């Protein structure tokens, strides 16, 4: 299971990680090794094994009521890298339209 640089770049894009070409190459090799190791799972016959799903018997749902955790607006943006007028600020969010 070899991952090449192009594949590593594709995954990095999906994960929104910027990596230098050297890092991409190094990651590609390291990931390939780990994935090869992961293939040891093929030695277990798992055909009929169900996927693990979390299912407490009577999972209690939350009542539709306030739970005291709502922050005041000032606190909400207090840690913002950039904020104004109570809003978070980010670089332009545009729909990518063809003219």
């Amino acid at each position, binding site marked *: 299971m070899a991952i090449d640089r192009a594949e590593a770049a*594709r995954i990095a*894009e*999906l994960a*929104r990680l910027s990596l230098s070409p050297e890092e991409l190459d190094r990651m590609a090799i390291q990931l390939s090794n780990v994935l090869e190791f992961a293939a040891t799972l093929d030695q277990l016959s798992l055909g009929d094994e169900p*996927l693990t*799903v*979390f*299912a*407490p018997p*009577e*999972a209690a*749902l*939350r*009542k*539709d*009521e*306030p*739970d*005291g*955790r*709502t*922050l*005041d*607006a000032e606190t*909400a*943006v207090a840690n913002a890298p*950039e904020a*104004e*007028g*109570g*809003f*978070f*600020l*980010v*670089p*332009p*969010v*545009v*729909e*990518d*339209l*063809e003219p």
Partner: protein
Amino acid sequence: MAWEAVIGLECHVQLKTRTKMFCGCPNRFGAEPNANVCPVCLGLPGALPRTNERALEYALRLGAALACEIAGESVFARKNYFYPDMPKNYQVSQYDRPLCVGGSLPIAVDGERHAVPLTRIHCEEDAGKSFHPERHGDRRLSRVDFNRAGVPLLELVTEPALRSPEACAAFLHALRRLVRWLGISDGDMEKGQLRCDANVSLRPAGATTLGTKTELKNLNTIKGVERGVAAEIERQRQLLAAGGRVTQATLLFDADRDRLAVMRSKEHAHDYRYFPEPDLPVLRASEARVAAVRAASPELPWAREARLRETFALPAYDAAVLTESRELSDYFEACVPSGHAKLASNWLMTEVLRVLKERDWSISDWSERVPAARFRGFLAKVAARELPGPVAKQVFSWLADEPGDAGALLERHGVKVASGEETLRPLVRAVIDEHPGPVAQVLAGEERTFGFLVGQVMKKSGGQAVPQEVQRLLREELAARARS
């Protein structure tokens, strides 16, 4: 070559629970930015979701009403993608195992009834809101508000079973009516409480395979959906007629310019990397819970529509208008005087709805002041011809603002209704005496002049006589004169 449009709709219904889907923040429209957020819906490190019971309840109500197959166990899944209005950069939604599958929504298009089959309904959370970029000094920045992040949504997907823009509009009307009827959402598209994307493709009429579909987004009103879908059908039709091929694309509808704009196709489509949400257990809808929801299901709007047509012999139009809301149709049934359904319907549809619009009232605002029983009393008098046309309109105009029945209102306003033989017969006789010429004409067979005589009696009575009574007495008196 005749082309058939094949349309599927993907709708989102915002539920009107008190709090958000996975946390206790208020589910409230129009607050100060970022005033309704907490660690959970702001996506802070370490925060965890907990499912809102009422959101499940509302989802089950919709699933039951649409005759869906409801899963006793369904699974929340993470839909992973990066966007500034996404606090966690994944949305908690449902994927492989949704809450509901199948089902259908009955609609009527051009008088014909169809059941639009559904693919699925599932629960998910809403994202925050980001705004168009604005100037900030020498930079351009977008603002983001997370108040809406985490609000409960139901995603409802239809089979590609719709065939026209009108059918799409009818579907949305029916869905909006239903979610309001069930009390689970206000369904206001302008407020984003009901949203709709459309998938549109064409195929040769009669074909069974599907053509390439495009996705339409930003359809913000029912009219917008209708026009956007129509525009896309036309665009594809022209393209195909010219021998071209439809390519998959996402298009945004610009309602102001009535135009579709193609979104720049991304190099790689979204890979959402769905996997079951590890922070939430399986969503259980026990048989007992589902049975309770089904048992508590109200008479559904289309069923009531049919019943009003049958039981009250109302035309389809009336039944449709009256069942626009559950409250309105409840009111109708409560205020109908026996045997006078059409009368009641007319008064509700024209006069009452007009008042609601003028005063920006709901039917509940009206019925607080004019309880159904009181209105029934009024309608009964109108039906019995005790209130002639103009008088009835006057009394109606006082109903919402003043107490008392028709009689009390008339008295308070000093309006007398001339009715009863004792009052009217002398007036009729007087008119006959005063207008020998016209009387002779009528007796000679000229019907038109009869109306003149009726008018004269009305004038003499001060315009408050019941016309039918006047006519009856006039005919009697004229007949009596004719014999003498």
